[in-house]
């Protein structure tokens, strides 16, 4: 009887959650067995490690300097960034000190629906306590949900020299893995990132974390590869314009500087569009279907930005000669954009089918119960 009840609850949950999810053209993803549509990214770490600042800078366009005025988080803040961003994650910002043994804190439910757990370590501070908390958190989470991606942000590295950064990363990496090995949990994989809110490293790290949670990634990469090879483009990114996280790129290696320049280009386009490109209505958005930008650099490279969906933009780099055939590039882009729409449509259809299936099962259940 109890398993039936659980089953009912899960189905109800699935139904209610899929209800509001199918907006047009917005990609929803990763339903686990419980039917939750939006996976969670948890931001955890010791007090003052920088979690809320990260969230504000990446998803709310806060200037890093303003984060000095942020107050300590004293309860779990649950941010839903799906309305403005392609990334429909829930960011859970935990206050620094979480007591796992506190009975009111039901970490099981939280971890079960989590896609990625980001643990933030303040690299400028002594990190012994951080490491022990990391170990505790990871082991707890793993027992509940072994599929969680564990990401460790070695944060606040803006003050350190390159050698110092590498040294810290190596040290933390070694210690964390030693702790896990000692506990017999070698299976758990931790990924490490050096981050700071004062440069692009936090966006780059978040890009990688987000990409791991996107099931369509290979398809998107494939589409980008086809596009660039047929258009004479050297590099292309698919960016979420609000957070400047790139959710896909072609298979050529990513050069950090190219990524940074792309972020800067998006900033320029958004800023200029916000000044001159707002229609007279109240709900005007600077970024719309016709948003385009072309930047000519003096080294014969052209940067080209085109709107893909209301959240996504493609930023590509191509040599000036290729850009001479703009008509061809625009046609290829048109095909690319249509393909992306189809990828999304598939997802929405899958969603709707699941919902239908769930409803049928539910009605069978009720029928079975009434007999």
């Amino acid at each position, binding site marked *: 009887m109890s398993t039936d009840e659980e089953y009912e609850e899960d189905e109800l949950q699935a139904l209610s959650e899929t209800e509001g999810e199918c907006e047009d053209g917005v990609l929803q993803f990763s339903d686990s067995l419980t039917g939750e549509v939006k996976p969670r990214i948890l931001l955890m770490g010791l007090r003052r490690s920088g979690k809320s600042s990260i969230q504000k800078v990446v998803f709310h366009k806060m*200037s890093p*300097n303003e984060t000095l005025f942020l107050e300590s988080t004293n309860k779990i803040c649950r941010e839903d960034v799906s309305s403005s961003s392609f990334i429909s994650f829930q960011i859970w910002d935990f206050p620094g000190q979480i007591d796992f043994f506190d009975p009111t804190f039901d970490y099981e439910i939280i971890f079960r629906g989590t896609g990625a757990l980001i643990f933030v370590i303040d690299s400028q501070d002594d990190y012994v306590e951080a490491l022990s908390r990391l170990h505790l958190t990871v082991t707890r989470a793993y027992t509940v949900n072994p599929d969680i991606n564990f990401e460790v942000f070695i944060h606040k590295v803006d003050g350190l020299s390159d050698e110092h950064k590498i040294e810290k990363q190596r040290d933390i990496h070694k210690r964390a893995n030693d702790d896990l090995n000692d506990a017999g949990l070698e299976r758990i994989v931790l990924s490490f990132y050096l981050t700071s809110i*004062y440069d692009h490293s936090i966006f780059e790290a978040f890009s990688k974390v987000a990409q791991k949670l996107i099931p369509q990634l290979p398809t998107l990469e494939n589409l980008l590869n086809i596009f660039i090879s047929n258009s004479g483009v050297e590099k292309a990114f698919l960016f979420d314009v609000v957070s400047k996280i790139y959710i896909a790129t072609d298979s050529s290696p990513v050069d950090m*500087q*190219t990524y*940074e*320049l792309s972020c*800067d*280009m998006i*900033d*320029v*386009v958004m*800023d*200029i*569009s916000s*000044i*001159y*490109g*707002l*229609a007279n209505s109240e709900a005007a958005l*600077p*970024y*719309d*279907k*016709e*948003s*385009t*930008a*072309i*930047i*000519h*650099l*003096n*080294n014969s*490279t052209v940067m080209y930005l085109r709107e893909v969906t209301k959240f996504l933009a493609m930023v590509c780099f191509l040599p000036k000669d290729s850009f001479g055939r703009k008509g061809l590039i625009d046609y290829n882009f048109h095909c690319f954009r249509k393909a992306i729409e189809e990828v999304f449509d598939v997802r929405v259809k899958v969603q709707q089918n699941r919902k239908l299936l769930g409803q049928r099962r539910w009605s069978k259940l009720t029928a079975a119960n009434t007999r």
Partner: protein
Amino acid sequence: MSLFTVLLMGKSGSGKTSMRSIIFANYIARDTRRLGATIDVEHSHVRFLGNLVLNLWDCGGQDTFMENYFTSQRDNIFRNVEVLIYVFDVESRELEKDMHYYQSCLEAILQNSPDAKVFCLVHKMDLVQEDQRDLIFKEREEDLKRLSRPLSCTCFRTSIWDETLYKAWSSIVYQLIPNVQQLETNLRNFAQIIEADEVLLFERATFLVISHYQCKEQRDAHRFEKISNIIKQFKLSCSKLAASFQSMEVRNSNFAAFIDVFTSNTYVMVIMSDPSIPSAATLINIRNARKHFEKLERVDGPKHSLHMRMR
């Protein structure tokens, strides 16, 4: 060469070198953390608008140097000054001392260059809580205006972390351009011919707005500083890749903006609110106008501007 001397003065640590680095040497705000205290006087020639040379005297603000200026170096430093820019650190604990030095500067100016324009920058405003900023600035401005009599001073509130720095320097530099009226007339004609909503002219090195034309009310009153800042930041990002940008086009369904090299000393930004006009048309118009404006710049050469100044 018309040589304008600009004196940049203020107490030690008030932010003069940072300011100068950002406006003229393409630093970004964060890089200024690396700057150490200026020793004695740093003297630099900065070419500006081709035929203007800004003679920047960045005087180390420490006490011993300050004493030095007002006694032995006085005539040397305060002679032929067109513009005095005095920087006050809004967080300073020694307001009286600051005012004392400021007044000594003014005295020296009155004696040696009585026609100089005086600008006071109340700097580091980012360190003041946002709701306090207007109040504190107003207080300082009143005090400074009072103290400066019989000279009149123009006050600005600034910070290297936002657009207020550009606004202040833009206003200062605008007053130094000898043929600004003619420039604006020509710009207006150009804009009307190509049916642009707005045309901005930027100085090439600093991206300060030196002239503009608009045909209708624009929504954002602070847009010049914002655009300057935006482009400058982007220029800096490009320089990290050892590149620089030549031209830019940004559009959405409501507008199209074109930023391009104009004359040897300027950049132009053209805003069209009719996005159906093909880019190629606007770009050709800009190219044709370029030749005309280049001619203008050459005609108003050094001799001409020098002559105007002497009147």
